[in-house]
């Protein structure tokens, strides 16, 4: 049952453990550092780990999209926003009282423990039969047939988001 360390399964298991560590370390850096730019770097590390987990869940397409969209677009956008709008250091030092940190730890720990407890003790039933293999071809077919309406709606949402963010960011600029 337990594969040896140097068999292919064992090496895959080691890589999986490394990916879990990368994800958790990234999440810790993203939430616990003081400077926002370090926090964004931690977020990028965390998303690289999550992309690896998606690969283990047998969907390399979603893993690649995770790298492209989250690491490549969202983190870079947040980094640019930090460059444009980061407050100075003296202002940041006055916050972060102990009460807020303790309250946050209690909230996060409680939510995480409750979800993990429910997940481990839940009774999950595997399906009797799988309709298809979940390959990229099947994803493309169901995106253009069963989910075509949602696909179009997402396109409109993204268009509205682009126009809205340009309009919002332009609004208060002086001299225009």
């Amino acid at each position, binding site marked *: 049952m*337990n594969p040896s*360390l140097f068999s292919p399964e064992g090496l*895959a*298991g080691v890589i999986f453990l490394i990916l*879990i560590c990368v*994800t958790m370390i990234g*999440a810790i850096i*993203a*939430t616990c550092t003081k400077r*926002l730019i370090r*926090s*964004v770097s931690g*977020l990028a590390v*965390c998303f690289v780990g*999550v992309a690896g*987990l*998606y690969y283990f*869940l047998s969907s390399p*397409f*979603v893993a690649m*999209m995770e790298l492209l969209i*989250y690491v490549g677009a*969202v983190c870079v*956008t*947040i980094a640019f*926003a930090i460059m*444009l*709008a980061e*407050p100075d250091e003296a*202002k*940041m030092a006055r*916050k*972060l009282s102990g009460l807020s940190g303790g*309250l*946050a730890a209690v*909230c*996060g720990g409680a*939510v*995480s*423990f409750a*979800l*993990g407890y429910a*997940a*481990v003790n839940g009774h*999950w039933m*595997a399906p009797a039969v*799988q*309709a*298809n293999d*979940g390959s990229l071809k*099947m*994803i493309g077919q169901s995106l253009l047939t069963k*989910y075509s309406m949602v696909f179009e709606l*997402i396109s409109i949402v993204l268009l509205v*988001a682009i126009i*809205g*963010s340009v309009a*919002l*960011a332009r609004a*208060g600029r002086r001299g225009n």
Partner: protein
Amino acid sequence: MLTLSTQLNTYLVIGAVLFGFGIFGLVRRPSLIGMLIAVELVLSGASINFMAFNRFLAPDPTVGQIITLFIMAIAAAEAAISLSIVIAVYRNYKSIEVEDLVELKG
């Protein structure tokens, strides 16, 4: 220990821990961009749950992947909109700390 990647519970616990980190950052962070980063963590915890159920339990294993793609699109739109709101707020208040933004009818 090395067969963790074939069990559903592993992924569910990772998703729950990421969600908890997101809530932790959301309560702890004093600035708007820090809260946005925490929200991204929450969304990725939810995506991991969808992908795990999709791999192990779903009768049609394309559904979870498509939902995860939609979550990514929504998260990208949300990040773009909220970052432009943050920049507009910074231009007016010279601050992105939540405690400074208490004035209504600005």
